């Protein structure tokens, strides 16, 4: 399945605003560091399915880390 | 032959600026330069330009920064206390390498001082004024016609060097009327494109940034070296001065602007009374014409510096002359203008003291 929310880890400063904003509580800080020494925000592959693409995390992100993808409706 | 007309100094400066392509003027009222913004308020819109009466001199110079940053020929004018307020913006304009014209019709200081002519802003104009290592090209016209001619050159050179240029006049220059010939207006369409100007990228180029901030010390030093190289070029190419009766001069008068006019009258009378008096008149205050002073100091008996200040230009004269000849000083201050008669008396006194000197007139050698 395609990712609904993706994080540009190198831009992330681990500020956690997205974590607070996410109504589903699926965002966490990864264990690893990015090159600036921050734990970047992440969503596990399993949790991606819970994302409703509500955009709240992306709206609150001060560093334009987050991109959101919405599944396209299949034409009938 | 172009028509000769009678014009007041301040208005002539304004008209010359419009003819030189100035299309943006921001100013603030202060005596004795008000005719410049008033003239601009009447005339600038007629040629498609903009005049703004700013809320302060501080704001006016920053409007000029913004206007100059778009590549528009921009200027402001003021008088001493107002020029003090503009120093912040002048430093930024120099730092951001923008072309602009600043006119200072100097009045007496310090503080509120007075509204009569003075020359107490030489240090401010030539030694910095604002913060940091920058220079202005500073013209010191002695007549209305010369002011007109220098305004035209000021815009050209400001753009050539991407550096602010100052016209340093005083209340006499601004307020007196003289017959002048105005130049033909510059064709704005023929001016070179300014690739650095912030006009919007148009989606076709990388953004231009007008800026004087270099947080990286190495880059800031590099920027400063680049500025200094421009100033070095100015000192090589832009020094202007006038020499009068220097061939056989024994005493050299020096003065600029209004005091130069007085000195010239004194020189003429001195000549008619048998004194061999010549004159060096700086036209650029910065870069200062050190060379003619140095040359003259090899052979003349003395210098007489006449200023409407406590003695500011005399420091540059001393740098040039050093101890090769005595430098005498005559001044008036606070808005008082020296008379030719008083200067003539000084010349006689100097002549007398030199004749008494056993060394044959080479004092201090």
């Amino acid at each position, binding site marked *: 399945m*395609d990712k609904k929310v993706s994080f540009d880890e190198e*831009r992330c*400063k681990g500020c*956690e*605003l997205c974590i607070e*904003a996410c109504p589903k509580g699926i965002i966490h800080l990864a264990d690893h560091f990015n090159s600036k020494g*921050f734990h970047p925000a992440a969503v596990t592959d399993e949790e991606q399915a819970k994302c409703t*693409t509500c*955009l*709240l995390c992306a*709206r*609150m*992100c*001060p*560093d*334009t880390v*987050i*991109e*959101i*993808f919405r*599944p*396209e409706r299949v034409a009938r | 032959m172009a028509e000769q007309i009678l014009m007041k100094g301040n208005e002539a400066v304004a008209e010359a600026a419009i003819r030189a392509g100035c*299309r*943006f003027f*921001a100013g603030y009222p202060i005596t004795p330069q008000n005719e410049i913004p008033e003239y601009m308020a009447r005339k600038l819109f007629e040629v498609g330009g*903009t005049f*703004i009466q*700013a*809320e*302060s001199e*501080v*704001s*006016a110079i*920053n*409007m*000029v*920064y*913004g*206007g*100059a*940053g*778009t590549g528009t020929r*921009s200027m402001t004018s003021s008088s001493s206390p107002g020029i003090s307020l503009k120093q*912040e*913006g002048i430093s*930024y304009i120099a730092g*951001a390498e923008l072309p602009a014209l600043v006119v200072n019709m100097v009045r007496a200081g310090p503080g509120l001082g007075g509204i009569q002519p003075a020359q107490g802003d030489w240090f401010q104009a030539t030694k910095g004024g604002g913060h940091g290592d920058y220079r202005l090209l500073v013209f010191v016209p002695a007549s209305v016609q010369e002011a007109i001619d220098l305004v035209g050159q000021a815009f050209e050179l400001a753009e050539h060097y991407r550096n602010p240029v100052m016209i340093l006049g005083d209340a006499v220059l601004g307020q007196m009327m003289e017959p002048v010939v105005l130049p033909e207006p510059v064709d704005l369409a023929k001016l070179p494109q300014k690739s650095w100007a*912030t*006009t*919007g*990228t*148009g989606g076709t180029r990388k*953004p*231009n*940034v*007008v*800026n*004087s*901030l270099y*947080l990286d010390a190495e880059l800031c030093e590099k920027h400063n070296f680049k500025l200094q190289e421009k100033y070095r070029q100015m000192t090589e190419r832009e020094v202007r001065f006038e020499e009068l009766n220097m061939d056989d001069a024994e005493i050299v008068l020096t003065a600029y602007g209004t005091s130069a006019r007085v000195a010239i009258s004194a020189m003429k009378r001195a000549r008619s009374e048998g004194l061999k008096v010549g004159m060096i008149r700086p036209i650029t205050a910065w870069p200062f014409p050190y060379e003619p002073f140095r040359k003259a100091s090899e052979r003349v008996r003395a210098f007489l510096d006449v200023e409407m200040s406590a003695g500011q230009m005399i420091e540059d004269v001393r740098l040039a002359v050093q101890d090769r000849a005595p430098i005498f000083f005559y001044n008036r201050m606070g808005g008082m203008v020296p008379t030719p008669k008083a200067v003539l008396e000084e010349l006689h006194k100097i002549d007398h003291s030199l004749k008494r000197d056993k060394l044959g007139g080479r004092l201090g050698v």
Partner: protein
Amino acid sequence: MSVKVFERPKALSSVIFHYCPGCTHGIIHRLVAEAIDEFGVQGKTIGVASVGCSVLAYNYFNVDFQQAAHGRAPAVATGIKRCLPDRTVFTYQGDGDLASIGTAEIVHAAMRGENITVIFVNNAIYGMTGGQMAPTTLLGQNTTTSPGGRKPERAGRPIRMSEMLSQLEGPAYIARVSTHNAAQVARAKQAVKKAFQAQVDKKGFSMVEVLSTCPTNWGMTPNEALKWLEENMLPVYPLGEFKTEPGLPGPSAAKTTVPTREVKTD
């Protein structure tokens, strides 16, 4: 297959912001860039950066920029706009810059109705210089120059720029918005767009005051700072539109000023 529904606006460069983690400057930059994208004016926009944390804003926007002296951005923007009236010109200023050292410039740009857009970031403190008191600092708020909290007898009371400026006739649009949650950010976006709309429609001066946080100098985590903003700044700095000229999109409930009568001159 899926479609991208949120990405970095084109008017932002790829340079990573120097702002501290969780600083809402980044959100506000993005909102401005989104507005520039949506109006399609990137190629004809000129920004003016001020002095403060956003001094380096020119690195972050893909548009021409001028960097102004402290407080002077509205004067610089005036110069730009008067020379290039068909360009979109905005300033991006903090509260030290706009509400302290630059009060003359902002008041008179607003008075003249300069057709520029001002983004005014109010975080109640001087961030760049290390957390000194701003004119917007709240009573009792601890800063390095109001140790023990701002006391009115020593340092006066917080200044409300939006309310002040909305008394003038020049402004077409003045609003105060906040960044303390995603819903407010969405509202802030609408206000920023409306401000740019006012400029595009040549209606005059527009300003959006954006309540913002300074986690570092407030001494809080970014999320704590958002809560602090909501609990402490909103009562002092109420959100809303203070001035809306008729003709701007959206509800125009806010008051307009009565135009002054012109005197006859010969």
